[in-house]
């Protein structure tokens, strides 16, 4: 065997250990050196090619056995669509309609009968502060604040301001979160309610009559500005 043939064979199949190969390597010092270089290179090549295998790959494959291809390619979007649909349904059902949204403000006022019409000492800037905390800027007073408190309305921490205006008494309920707008007064349980949508949520005005509710709404809008 000549050196060229030997080297070609070793480059194509380094593990080749045929009799001719062994004999040639024994007799040719240059080819023996070539073989040592090739073996070192081959070792590095093997090491480099043997990348670590992803952990648990075999188990994953076995678990997937027999699952139809359409399932593998479509199950994720289908599952996602189902989750979104269910979430939307749950959210939709859990969201109060305008009617029930208005009603929860009235119910809150009804739950605190003692404060309506009562006059307790409140901070002079109470309304200004309450509006400011809700992203509003009170530009001028439009009534006398009788009561301010933090209340839970529909599961949300809200601010309840009881105010006396020249159009009558009203509860101003500043509820963060859901924004709703009810311009035409709704009457529930003998109370009229309108709701103003502001960037941080809803400002409900609960008064004794629809006319009072509308007038006090106009007062609020004319006296304040709300930002996000």
């Amino acid at each position: 065997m000549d050196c060229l043939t030997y080297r070609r064979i070793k480059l194509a199949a380094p593990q080749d250990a045929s009799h001719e190969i062994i004999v040639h390597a024994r007799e040719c010092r240059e080819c023996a050196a070539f073989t040592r270089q090739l073996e070192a290179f081959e070792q590095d090549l093997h090491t480099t090619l043997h990348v670590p295998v992803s952990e648990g790959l075999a188990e994953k494959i076995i678990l997937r056995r027999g699952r139809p291809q359409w399932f593998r390619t479509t199950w994720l979007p289908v599952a996602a669509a189902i989750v979104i649909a269910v979430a939307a349904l749950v959210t939709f059902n859990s969201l109060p309609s305008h009617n029930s949204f208005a009603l929860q403000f009235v119910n809150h006022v009804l739950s605190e009968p003692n404060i309506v019409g009562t006059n307790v000492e409140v901070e002079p800037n109470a309304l200004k502060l309450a509006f400011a905390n809700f992203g509003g800027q009170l530009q001028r007073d439009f009534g006398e604040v009788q009561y301010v408190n933090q209340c839970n309305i529909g599961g949300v921490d809200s601010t309840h301001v009881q105010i006396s205006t020249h159009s009558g008494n009203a509860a101003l309920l500043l509820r963060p979160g859901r924004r709703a707008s009810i311009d035409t007064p709704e009457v529930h349980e003998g109370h009229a309610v309108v709701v103003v949508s502001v960037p941080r949520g809803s400002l409900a005005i609960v008064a004794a009559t629809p006319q009072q509710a509308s007038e006090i709404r106009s007062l609020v809008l004319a006296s304040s500005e709300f930002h996000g």
Partner: protein
Amino acid sequence: MKQNSYEMIVRAYSADLFRFAYWMCRNRWQAEDLVQETFAAAWRARDALRDESAAKAWLFSILRNEHARIYQRKRVEITDTEIDDIPEASLSGHERVELVDALNTLPEHFREPLLLQILGGFSGREIAKTLGISEQNVMTRLTRARQALQRMAGEQSEYRNTGRR
């Protein structure tokens, strides 16, 4: 092929197939997908495997077909091998980079028979059958693949000069 045989085959060959896939697409996640697709296709076509001793070559052929079907047809962009994926062993960082770069640069018609030989453990004849070319052609490609790798990776290392280590 029965369930037990299938599981044995998965355990026996998934690692080799993963490494082969990795060097075909040079991305761990794509390689894993490719191996999973390969076994899924193998399971669907299990009746075609008459002789389970031929399972390994059969699986490599399926993987090559899946690779062509998924990645070549879709022209998925191939990313370069991450050096961190490569075992450190005795190679210095510099040598690893050189060798990985060389492997990434090696044309596929040289790289594929080399991968089949080293990672699959196939003979020249088996590689020829898998690639649909002559055995002589395979041996030529293997020779040239190693020459090219040594030239690209070894130019700055000691392989050529001292035989090193």
